[in-house]
């Protein structure tokens, strides 16, 4: 194993990419290299050899996709920026612009099966098209730079670039045309509509222009949401379990196992079920603000918990603790769902700011009150 390259920006990249983030010349991928199993020879052009990509995804691509969805090693999963060939492209073949996030790139090359074309991969630091466009890395400047670096104007005879529609947040079509002569054609939002778009003389039907947020779109986000929250929630649950050892009789390990563990499992269970059910039930939860949707889901959980607790005696301890659960669960879910705004496709920053100005102070207050009640309940035993 060779050591990763340290870039001037402080970021490390795998050695085979060179220091692409600081503009130094990048190493051309070699087909026999382990990380470049998706390369299949090369195509000769006026400006040298261009690596050719496979249009079918293999086992390793699929494993990579699953790992990425679970947040494992995704920043090591980059495509070196530059130009790639698909099929046997000619100078007249279309040029598709993509991000160097492997998932975006994989989806694109898969849809280009049995076609000829060029893929121009921009350096988006391993981030998908839409997010990179929002940050500006998938943008006018990087596109112009990449056109120049790859000598695209020598390789293709036309002056057209097919850019995913969501790239428009970063790419100004009129500026690109003015500076490079290349006309930007915004293709469909979803890459799966690309074949239909290409077969219909680059016509985009209105439906292909709209982002959606269907059940499946929300479902694929659940693993990464779980992974992000996991460490905080495990830590929180651990602390709750430890604190549960306190009582008016001092500290005991028996209490950790009973009261502490009950509190911890209620807390962790709320996180788990909220992170899974919140995104799935999003359209049916009442309210526009996500913090309200979360609180409503939390109240529902509280009802379920209390109804089942009367049978299985889950809620042991004092009445104060039961009240504290009724406060903490909706608060936690309100916070979790509020943080899901960034993963959706339709929330505006202005809306998020308005929602947070109201919700965050309430969440903080409720969390403090809930904790005091729970902790206080360890020492005062009323009810039950």
């Amino acid at each position, binding site marked *: 194993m060779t050591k990763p390259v340290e870039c001037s920006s402080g*970021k490390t990249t795998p050695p085979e990419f060179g220091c692409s983030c600081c503009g130094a010349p990048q190493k051309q991928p070699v087909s026999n290299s382990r990380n470049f199993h998706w390369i299949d020879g090369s195509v000769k052009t006026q400006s040298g050899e261009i690596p050719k990509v496979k249009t079918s995804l293999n086992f390793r691509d699929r494993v990579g996709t699953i790992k*990425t*969805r679970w*947040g494992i090693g*995704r*920043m090591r999963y980059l495509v070196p920026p530059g130009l790639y060939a698909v099929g046997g492209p000619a100078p007249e073949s279309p040029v598709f612009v993509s991000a160097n996030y492997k998932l975006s790139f994989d989806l694109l090359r898969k849809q280009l099966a049995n076609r000829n074309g060029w893929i121009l991969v921009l350096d988006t*630091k391993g*981030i*998908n098209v839409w*997010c*990179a*466009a*929002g*940050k500006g890395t998938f943008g006018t400047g990087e596109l112009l730079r990449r056109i120049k670096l790859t000598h695209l104007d020598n390789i293709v005879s036309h002056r057209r670039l097919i850019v995913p*529609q*969501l790239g*428009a*947040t*970063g*790419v*100004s*079509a*009129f500026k690109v045309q003015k500076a490079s002569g290349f006309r930007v054609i*915004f293709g469909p*939002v979803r890459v799966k509509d690309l074949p239909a778009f290409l077969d219909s003389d680059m016509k*985009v039907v*209105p439906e292909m*222009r*709209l*982002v959606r*947020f269907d059940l499946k779109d929300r479902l694929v*986000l659940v693993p*990464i*949401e779980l*992974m*992000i929250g996991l460490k905080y929630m495990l830590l929180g649950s651990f602390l709750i379990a430890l604190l549960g050892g306190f009582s008016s009789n001092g500290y005991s390990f028996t209490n950790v196992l009973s009261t502490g563990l009950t509190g911890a499992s209620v807390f962790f269970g709320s996180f788990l079920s909220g992170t899974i059910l919140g995104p799935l039930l*999003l*359209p049916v939860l009442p309210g*526009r*603000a*996500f913090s309200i949707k979360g609180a409503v889901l939390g109240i529902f959980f509280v009802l379920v918990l209390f109804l089942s607790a009367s049978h299985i005696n889950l809620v042991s301890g004092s009445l104060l603790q039961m009240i504290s659960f009724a406060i903490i669960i909706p608060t936690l879910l309100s916070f979790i769902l*509020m*943080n899901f*705004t*960034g*993963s*959706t*496709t*339709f*929330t*505006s*920053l*202005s*809306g*998020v*700011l*308005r*929602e*947070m100005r109201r919700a965050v102070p309430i969440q903080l207050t409720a969390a403090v009150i809930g904790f005091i009640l729970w902790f206080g309940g360890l020492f005062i035993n009323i009810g039950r």
Partner: protein
Amino acid sequence: MRYIESAVNLEFDRSLCNGCGMCTVVCPHAVFRLEDKRAVMADKGACMECGACAKNCAQKAIKVRAGVGCAAAVLSSFLKKKTSIECGDDPDSPCCG
């Protein structure tokens, strides 16, 4: 699904519009529509402030404070005392996945 509509900051000056239709092409929520050879804001409340329309309006007829509608990004920029709100390069960031 729709979000808090009244908060949206999106301004359109129809008198500057030349009817190129680019805003209708780039908007992922069909906020704009062409009517009598010029654009109209047909559904302002659906706007998510991504900024694609303003970026691609050569006439500068559209104004929007573009940003990411992400509470986690707002929180982290508030905690780190940053002035701009954007997705981090944080590989954990779910919105960049």
